[in-house]
């Protein structure tokens, strides 16, 4: 008989009581997701690494105020979103963020030609994402990359679901337009 993995809520509750081990499990569960979200918000691998660490440190400090009614994942992404936005504000570059040139966007395997084509498409997509306003970019990332529902995005960003729906549609339209322009 196998024991089921503890839920986020259980780990978060233990972390609230000062359990470093439980918090480390949450870090390992979410570090990739937080990193890739922040990476595409700020466009720099080094800054994304630093901000991911800061997000978890901030979460640790704020955990005593966390209430079990709030889903841990949305609560954590809210912190990450604020971290990314603060970083963009400090840089005074909120509109356009391009990924580092030397950053490898995919770890897919396949024949070299397919791999190259996939990389090119993903790089073009990343470039188009970087041109989106940050509020549209974060909505489309949370929906299409992190698979959050409209209700979860609404809770994460503290905006209503109608705004999520319209912002997401605008983001997708803009992305299509940028990509078509790039291909033309």
């Amino acid at each position, binding site marked *: 008989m196998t024991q089921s993995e503890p839920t986020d809520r259980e780990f978060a509750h233990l972390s609230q009581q000062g359990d470093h081990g439980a918090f480390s499990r949450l870090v390992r569960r979410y*570090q990739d997701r937080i*990193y*890739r979200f922040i990476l595409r918000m700020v466009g720099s691998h080094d800054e994304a*690494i630093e901000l991911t660490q800061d997000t978890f*440190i901030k979460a640790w*400090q704020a955990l005593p105020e966390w209430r079990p009614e709030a889903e841990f994942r949305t609560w954590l992404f809210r912190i990450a979103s604020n971290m990314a936005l603060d970083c963009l504000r400090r840089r005074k570059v909120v509109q356009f963020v391009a990924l580092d040139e030397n950053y490898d966007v995919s770890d897919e395997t396949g024949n070299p030609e397919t791999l190259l084509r996939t990389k090119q498409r993903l790089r073009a997509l990343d470039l188009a994402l970087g041109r989106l306003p940050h509020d549209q970019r974060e909505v489309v990332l949370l929906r*299409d990359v*992190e698979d959050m529902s*409209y209700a979860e995005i609404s809770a994460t960003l503290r905006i209503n679901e109608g705004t999520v729906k319209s912002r997401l549609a605008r983001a997708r339209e803009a992305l299509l337009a940028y990509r078509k322009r790039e291909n033309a």
Partner: protein
Amino acid sequence: MKSESDCPRTEQLSALIDDELAAEPREDIASHAAVCPLCGPLLLELTEQRALMHSLAGTRPGVDLGPEIERRLAPRPRPRPRPAEGSWWRGWRLAPAGLAAASVLATGIYSGALLTAGAGIAVARPTAMAAFDPVPPGGICVGVPSCYSRGR
């Protein structure tokens, strides 16, 4: 022939691919897109783009951030366990301290009364009892032999 104004907004098509529409509008929009030369291709593009976006989920930092984060965590003081409110034992535990406080208070009041009222207290003694005093009537002290008549 249908015009472009009959088409649902992109917002509805976008919500359709996310399965975030109620049953009725979902069926209406899906059946419209199936025949519309404008909405059909747009729906396909949105769906393809969403799949491409999803492939970005493979991005990883390439390093485990756990040890560095754990090193930076400040220790959090554990809350001390408290006994249940209204426990009968809690009251009894205070008894020794209460008794000590009461005895200190009583001693203080007694000493205070002696100091303030002691000078004014005169013990009335009957004159007949003076014969039993260690100092004879008219004597000054007990121990000095010159004070006594020695039976002469």
